């Protein structure tokens, strides 16, 4: 059970306080309800580039990092397709420094041309480091494009192409800020060695006078149901052939999500998972194989990804994967195997909750999904899943028409 209190400021900022007096530290986490899915298709990568610009100084504070480090604090941020999250960890005595910094950049950024110039370059290097200069680094660009016809998950958070980032203008930055970075679009979580009263006072003091802003209605194009299998062959300068198969799956907020999440764990979670045991250890067709998904809020992709043992033919490898998929579709999963993946979830949640920062981050995320209290109901959602639920979801999920396959061939 995670204990917390919740209140809302007059300007619409939602605030969650999670007291934990076993630590000398405090965390301040701000989650903005904006991600890469909210971008203009011609200006992709913007939400993430924007995250970098949030460190380029705010209206009253020229340098964000320096005063925080002076207060013994550390910070970072991340952007996904769905959201942008900023967090600070610091000694609890200095929590007001976090309020000061975070509220000033919610009030307004400095909008500095030099900062934009530099961060465009930094993000370009990030793009190169992770997606161009790595073997198989381009596969997710290709897969998203193959699997989505309409929905903005079609492009990656880093952006569809480098030019979109290189072309970003200061007007775009300003418009984006005042559209999305408003109290009404944010969730503030303060956790650790703090009290509710203290947080109420500090929140009112530092965030209370920030103009509320308007909630932007989200009208994303809905991805139509896929009606035919998609396939793509790629040849690249990599040492091994690789197989990627993606299936459209329910979004994070759907009831069916939990069954599909357990299915991914049965296939790919842990050394005893089916794909690893059968395809790597017994049949020796893959040197490694995984099954995972990103837990996106809108309908996402369940992915099976593996590298073939040298000399194995793509069609034999794919056939062997298909046998495992047929099996999970046709046969009822043994009770012990279901219990195993439930136990794994229980344990994973417990280890995740050990860290104050994770708890603060998760409270914000569940609140974004609709209600922070969902965090405390999460495990019971998994516990309720039966072998019949898995069977039913596997039928729909692994329909061949729902599949997207990339055959990634080594050209040497």
């Amino acid at each position, binding site marked *: 059970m995670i204990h917390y209190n919740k209140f809302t400021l007059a300007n619409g900022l939602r605030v969650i306080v999670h007291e934990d007096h076993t*630590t*000398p*530290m405090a965390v301040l986490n701000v989650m903005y309800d904006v991600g890469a899915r909210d971008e203009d298709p011609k200006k992709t990568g913007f939400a993430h580039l924007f995250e970098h610009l949030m460190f380029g100084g705010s*209206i*009253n*504070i020229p340098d964000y990092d*320096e005063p925080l*480090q*002076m*207060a*013994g*604090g*550390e910070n970072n941020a991340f952007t996904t397709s769905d959201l942008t999250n900023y967090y600070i*960890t*610091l*000694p609890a*005595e*200095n929590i*007001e420094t976090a*309020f*000061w910094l975070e509220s*000033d950049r919610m*009030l307004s950024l400095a909008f500095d041309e030099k900062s934009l*110039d*530099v961060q*465009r*370059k*930094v*993000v370009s*290097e990030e793009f*190169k*480091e992770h997606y161009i*200069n790595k*073997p198989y680094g381009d596969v997710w660009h290709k897969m998203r494009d193959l699997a989505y016809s309409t929905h903005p998950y079609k492009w990656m958070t880093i952006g569809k192409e480098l030019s979109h980032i290189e072309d970003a203008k200061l007007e775009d930055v300003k418009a984006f800020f005042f559209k999305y970075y408003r109290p009404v679009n944010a969730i503030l979580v303060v956790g650790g060695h703090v009290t509710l009263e203290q947080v109420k006072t500090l929140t009112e003091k530092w965030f209370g006078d920030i103009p509320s802003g308007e909630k932007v209605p989200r009208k994303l194009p809905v991805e139509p149901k896929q009606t035919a299998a998609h396939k793509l062959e790629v040849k690249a*300068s*990599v*040492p*091994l052939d690789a197989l990627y198969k993606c299936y459209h799956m329910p979004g994070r907020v759907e009831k069916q999500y939990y069954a599909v999440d357990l299915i991914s764990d049965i296939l790919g*979670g*842990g*050394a*005893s998972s089916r794909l690893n*045991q059968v395809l790597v*250890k017994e049949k*020796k067709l893959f*040197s*490694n194989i995984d099954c995972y998904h990103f837990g996106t809020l809108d309908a996402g992709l369940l992915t099976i990804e593996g*590298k073939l043992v*040298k000399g194995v033919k793509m069609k034999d490898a794919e056939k062997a994967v298909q046998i495992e998929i047929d099996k999970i579709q046709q046969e009822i999963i043994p009770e012990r195997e279901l*219990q*195993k993946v439930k*136990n794994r979830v*229980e*344990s*994973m949640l*417990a*280890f995740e909750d*050990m*860290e*104050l920062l994770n708890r603060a981050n998760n409270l914000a995320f569940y609140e974004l999904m609709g209600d922070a209290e969902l965090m405390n109901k999460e495990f019971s959602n998994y516990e309720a899943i039966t072998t019949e639920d898995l069977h039913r979801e596997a039928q729909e999920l692994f329909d061949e028409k729902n599949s997207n396959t990339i055959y990634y061939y080594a050209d040497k």
Partner: protein
Amino acid sequence: MINRKIAPEIKDAVDFDITLKPCEKFTLDNGIPVYVVKSDEQDTLQLEMVFPGGSWFETENLVASAANFLMKNGSSKHSALEINESIDYHGAYLNRNSHHETATYTLHCLTKHLTQLLPVMQEVILDPSFSEEELATFQQNMKQRLAVNLQKCDFVANRHIDKYLFGEFHPYGRVSSMEAYDALQTQTLHAFYKQHYTYNNCKIFVAGNLPANMIPLLNQYFGTTKWNGETTIIRPQMPILPAEEKKFRIFNDENGVQGAVRVARHFPNRYHPDFPKMLVLNTIFGGYFGSRLMSNIREEKGYTYGISSQIYNFRQSSAINIHTEAGRDVCEATIKEIYKELHTLQQEEVPEEELHLVRNFMIGSILGDLDGAFQIIQRWKNLILNDLDENYFYNNIRTIKTITAGELQQLAQQYFTPEDFYELVVI
């Protein structure tokens, strides 16, 4: 109206009183020491067994890491699948790691599952079978992984820079290879295991929410017999043979859009009085987001997504290594700026404001790092395995709080001379 231009009052680092929560010591019936940090705030625990089974002690390349890895893949009673299934079934993680000095097995689990997991862990540690089939799969898959990694400029650069610093035959400079994987044999692995994973060379570290009968349980599974017999591990002398050349440029991928830049030099180990001082200087130079390197090379010039400088924690001899991946066209400019920053620290004292900030930042980090039993046992483990005690920890904190700008400049003059550095770019 509040004045947002004025920062709130802060409590300064030097005023934080940091204490390392004590660690209890028990001894099992057969003499195995058990170090314990309890905390009942969560339902989880961590149990780590440490052996002198690192690469320092192997006589053939990769034997230490392969033995460590394959111990978990089957015993005389159960297959790898059966072992993995019983760990996964209880939602537990049994991770193995092989380092230069030590090799470890670490169990993370919910406290309620511990009694079911101890027999499995006992089997892994006391009765591994090292089957031919498991070795063959391991060899094949590791070679495939290596082939992929060899395409990455950062991976290749890490291998080379350590080789230049320590020599290719030294455990710190030795790297994996297809041939070394091919040469592995089950008998060698088994012999290495038998020699190094013995009761009298084992240390146990536990932390978290422990059952009341934790020590009796450990005694039951690991404390009653002299498993694997008593062996004496001798730490052989290993001469360091650094490269004679200092500057290297390697083309690994003709289409590479970035280069991996490494600039590195030798540095004394943690027992040397300059070591704690260098932790402070290194933080200023390249050890945090606001460091000189980050401010100049990322935040001012945008050459890279990130650049940092690290001090190796190796036992025999350490090194300072500056590393980054930078745009292909700006690698040389990056190296120039690195030398410029080294030079500035030699020429000018660090301003008091910056030093104050770094003190506060470092103390804040330590305070955060000591949060929770798992982190505290980690600190103790590092002290104990290096034959140190809490005085070392407190001495480091004292150094952070009291080192002067003059001492830092002196240190830079001694260790930041460009001619002492190896440099490498891998594109």
